[in-house]
């Protein structure tokens, strides 16, 4: 597609439920990132996938958070046993290029509300 897409755009869930967020990166982009952004706050790095390398999971806040990526395509971020503090916008970004410059582009985000 033309850009990074994310689904769903909005998700409301009850505390304790599991949620799965999806990201479709730009075709050909080898790197994929997940970030969390709380209201009015900055970008909190969660996880980074780069090609076939082991993912950088250093930003995951707890073991309730996990992410998978199939090759260089779609990624899913799973949050188990959601808590109210998980409420935020979850942003996905992909990075790739034409061997001259590698630019990173963000998706529109998934707004997660835990009630």
């Amino acid at each position, binding site marked *: 597609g033309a850009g*990074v897409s994310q689904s769903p755009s909005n998700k409301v869930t009850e505390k304790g439920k599991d949620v799965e967020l999806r990201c479709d990166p730009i075709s050909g*982009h*080898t*790197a994929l*990132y997940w970030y969390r952004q709380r209201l*009015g*706050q*900055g*970008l909190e*790095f969660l996880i*980074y996938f*780069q*090609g076939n390398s082991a993912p*950088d999971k250093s930003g995951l806040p707890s073991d309730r958070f996990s992410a998978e990526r199939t090759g260089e395509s779609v990624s899913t971020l799973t949050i188990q046993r959601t808590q109210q503090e998980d409420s935020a916008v979850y*942003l996905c*970004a992909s*990075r*790739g*290029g034409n*061997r*001259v*410059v*590698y*630019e*990173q*582009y*963000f*998706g*529109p*985000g998934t707004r997660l509300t835990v009630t």
Partner: protein
Amino acid sequence: QQQVKQSPQSLIVQKGGISIINCAYENTAFDYFPWYQQFPGKGPALLIAIRPDVSEKKEGRFTISFNKSAKQFSLHIMDSQPGDSATYFCAASTGYSSASKIIFGSGTRLSIRP
């Protein structure tokens, strides 16, 4: 050493004025410095980027100034308009021609007063 420090946290500028946002870094291996603009309810969008082999890059009203020796770079918005009101993030990464990890600053909330 991987951090990118951004200031100010928030900024109010009169319409027509110059908005200036500053960033500093430690890792001398960084060789790609993009700026992102984020409007409420939207994902950040790539605005302009620079490599350290040039001291300035201009695109329309937006200019990046780069000081390699001081390890600082800044975004200047000339003739600031209310439509420029947004949050701006600076960033840096190693490997200009690669998809290496990008490190973001903490963001600056810019408000342009009419």
